[in-house]
């Protein structure tokens, strides 16, 4: 019973930490994606940089943040190391390039089409932008879902700057890693299945929401 309560606690914490991280990342990533599309300058350079950052190893990012948050680091005075806030910051940084990249591609794919349509029917500048935003929303939502999936399945950052502290910074991925190391495969498998189900359920729910959305 106690073990089950612990598993549920870990699951809820994972969802909260990854959800907040994705939300934070979305706050700056989505406007940036629109800005890159609308400015339409240096797109090759922007794409190259963002795609490089999408593939950044989480362990490397975890290491950089560890150095930054450690007591002798630049941001050591904030006392963030081994806190859920540190994982949130780390994951939000991790998923930023991913959300920008997917949003940027989906917006760019339809922006020209709907821009032309809006122009052809007499929309003013603001109405044109609004139309592009509303029509590209499902793509942007999909980008956020992907970001959340990446965040919730991330291990390196959660382990290095979260510390896997029981009841405080332990999330599903770090718990799985720990249980496997201890030889408790049963708990690790339960958590693994839950992780998979959460990702699938959220994807389905948000896709359904975006399908019924009316421009």
């Amino acid at each position: 019973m106690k073990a089950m309560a612990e598993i549920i606690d870990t699951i809820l914490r994972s969802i909260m930490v990854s959800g907040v991280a994705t939300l934070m990342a979305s706050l700056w990533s989505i406007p940036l994606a629109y800005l890159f599309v609308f400015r339409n300058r240096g797109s090759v350079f922007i794409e190259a940089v963002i795609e490089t950052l999408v593939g950044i190893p989480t362990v490397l990012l975890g290491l950089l943040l560890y150095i930054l948050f450690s007591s002798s680091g630049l941001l050591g005075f904030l006392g963030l190391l081994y806190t859920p806030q540190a994982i949130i910051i780390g994951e939000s940084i991790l998923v930023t390039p991913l959300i920008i990249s997917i949003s940027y591609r989906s917006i760019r794919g339809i922006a020209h089409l709907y821009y032309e349509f809006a122009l052809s029917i007499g929309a003013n500048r603001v109405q044109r932008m609004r139309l592009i935003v509303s029509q590209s929303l499902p793509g942007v939502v999909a980008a956020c879902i992907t970001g959340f999936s990446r965040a919730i399945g991330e291990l390196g950052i959660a382990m290095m700057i979260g510390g896997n502290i029981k009841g405080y910074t332990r999330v599903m991925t770090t718990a799985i890693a720990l249980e496997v190391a201890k030889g408790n495969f049963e708990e690790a498998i339960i958590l693994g299945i839950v992780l998979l189900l959460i990702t699938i359920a959220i994807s389905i729910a948000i896709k359904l929401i975006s399908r019924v959305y009316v421009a």
Partner: protein
Amino acid sequence: MNIELINVWYRYSKSKDWALKEISITFRSSEIVYIDGHNGSGKTTLLKIASLMYRPTKGFITINNKNFWSLNEEKKTLFRRRVVYVHEKPILLRGTVLDNILYGLRIRGIDIEEALDISLNILSMFGIDDLINKPIQKLSTGQAQLVAIARALAVKPDILFLDEPFSNLDKEKRKAVINILNEFQTKGMGIVFSSHNIDIDGLSRYRRIVLENGVIASIYE
């Protein structure tokens, strides 16, 4: 309303070739013009320039003797609201048929009740009022084309530009659309459409412009 193209040349940004060369022509309200020409002859480009979407690389566009591209954004929008262009492949917004018809009306500030009346009337004219609440993903290509044309007519432009409007329609639907267009023309709307190899009765009544390799090869009044 008169839209005059004066020695218009157009080249796409990544192309070395001119898509249009030395085009001088006037489109007016109350007339139907048929633009003929093979694929790649410049029909779509001409329509997009004349409907104030593309800025010519060289030359001028004047509307009622005003140089359109030298106007400020607000005035440009006012003129653009009097001209509508319908793409060859219909571009529909997510939502229902009604959402699409309402869009052009709502951005012009028409209140919802009047916009609904107009939408219902126009859909009835096209005989597609039963599709009013149908999601656009469930429309056939022909139905989508009719919705796009109906949406453009709903805002009653001074001049309507239609790019290959009959390409997805069967002969019966083509005839119905031509009749509707004729009806709007008698009420003062100018209609310019492009097409090639089409079989429509009474086509010879319209002014016909033939494009070849981006230049006007001939005009039949």
